[in-house]
């Protein structure tokens, strides 16, 4: 099950991240997890949000450039070698990972990671066939 990630363009200058988060807070949007990729000049804030359509509209209204991308949320055993197992499957299938980052919470000895694959559909098929839990329900990872 692919989930939607929102990416927001940020200039690399003070206050940019705060401005984006302020928009989310004002609209009562909870950010499930996020990652920030940055270069000397700009940053890309990637967000996983339950109600992504509403969040996208709010960011756009506030003047941000927003892009919606399909990513996979994959459950990983929270133990040594847990991630390695996933990466071995990915490697064997010749899948290309553009980037990845972790969810902030774990549950029941499991962690979850966000993977941005070049081809998310192919990745989903391969991982499911290998018995990897590709998460469908973000509710699991929301703060209790």
């Amino acid at each position, binding site marked *: 099950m692919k989930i939607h990630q929102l*990416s927001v*363009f940020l200039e690399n200058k003070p206050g*940019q991240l705060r401005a984006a988060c302020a928009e989310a807070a004002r609209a009562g949007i909870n950010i499930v997890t996020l990652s920030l990729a940055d*270069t000397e000049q700009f940053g890309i804030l*990637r967000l996983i949000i339950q109600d992504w359509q509403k969040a996208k509209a709010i960011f756009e209204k506030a003047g941000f*450039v*927003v*892009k919606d991308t399909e990513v996979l949320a994959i459950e990983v055993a929270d133990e040594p070698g847990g991630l390695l197992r996933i990466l071995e499957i990915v490697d064997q299938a010749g899948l290309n990972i553009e980037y990845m980052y972790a969810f902030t919470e774990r549950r029941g000895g499991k962690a979850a990671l966000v993977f941005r694959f070049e081809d998310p559909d192919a990745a989903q098929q391969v991982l499911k066939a290998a018995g990897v839990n590709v998460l469908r329900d973000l509710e699991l990872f929301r703060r209790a």
Partner: protein
Amino acid sequence: MNSAERHPVSAPDFMPASALGETQLRRLQAIVTRAYDHVKLFRQRMEERSLKPRDIRSLDDVRKLPFTVKTDLRDTYPYGLFASDLRDVVRLHASSGTTGKPIVVGYTREDIAVWTEVMARSFAACGLHAGDIVQNAYGYGLFTGGLGAHYGAEALGATVIPISGGNTERQITVLKDFGVTAICCTPSYFLHLLDQGALLGVDFRQLPLRAGVFGAEPWTQGMRERIEAQSRIKAYDIYGLSEIIGPGVAIECACQNGLHVFEDHFLAEVVDTKTLEPLPDGEEGELVLTTLSKQAMPMIRYRTRDITALMAESCPCGRTLRRMRRISRRSDDMFIIRGVNVFPSQIEAALLRVEGTLPHYQIVLTREADLDQMEVQVEVTPEVFSDEVRVLEELQRKLVHSIETITGIRVAIRLVAPKTIPRSEGKAKRVIDKRQL
């Protein structure tokens, strides 16, 4: 200056006003006839005004003639304004046009001789002569600066070092080791050489260098004072543009108060920028030039877009050629960076080529360590935005490359958030010039 110090090549600089006027009229009539006979666009414009070459009976009659503008060169690209058969053209130069296509200028053998003459007269006015060692740091190539200065200095009998532009350390080594007495480059590049020289422990005041012939970009009295104080040379302003001939249209003399226009080859007018009516001497307006002897590509009333005023007062140096005040600004949105003319429309063409639609942008000019820097700030649009860093970095690379292809200079691109570049009422302010000229 007494005549004993005059170089023979400078003789026309001192011709009596009446003789100058006669030469100008004779040449104007010949060039108008030549352009009428051989340049279709010019003939059409003459016909629209029911004008014939024989209607030019006095120098004031130049005012009847149609103007020529830069876009005429683009519209007739590449050879449409040539009045000579290409077989008689021995040289082509080119400079960037306003929207990406270069403009081409041609020279016959006679034209090269005239150019050489005015450049030799320019160097002579700056006090150079045989025995001087001239480091020519103008770029050699399609740009007219390098070869123009080269031929002129050689004709004067000076020793020319054709080092061309760039490679600052080598420039300083040559300056120091070759006994260089004069240098040609842009004034900002010379300031850069001074600063880099200081870092390398080279004190220009200890070198035999005594003159700098600086042009291809506007500069100020403040820059001159800095250059002269830090290097103990005399810094001369030279003016020219490739559409007319290249460098050598006008030059400062030892008085350093205005540039003498080589009026026997270039007829100068200053016109009101709005009405295009000619203004009397002393009043500021747009400089309009007519080439009086150019064979391959006569330019009739070419609007330079440079703002200046003509000075009719006689000069203590004795030259009878009128002077023009140093160029202070432009009447269009062109700016000059590292000696290269750039129009915002070229940047637009470059952005459009990469992105498909024109993003909001702004050009910021700064001067760091005396070198001009240009940053183009481009607002990110949903069409080009990506969640991947490498896609945006690739976009930056493409934009840099596209601008370099069109303008010939490498600039920095900064991607900025939407709506962060100020919008202005009416015409957008595309260029923010923070350089302290």
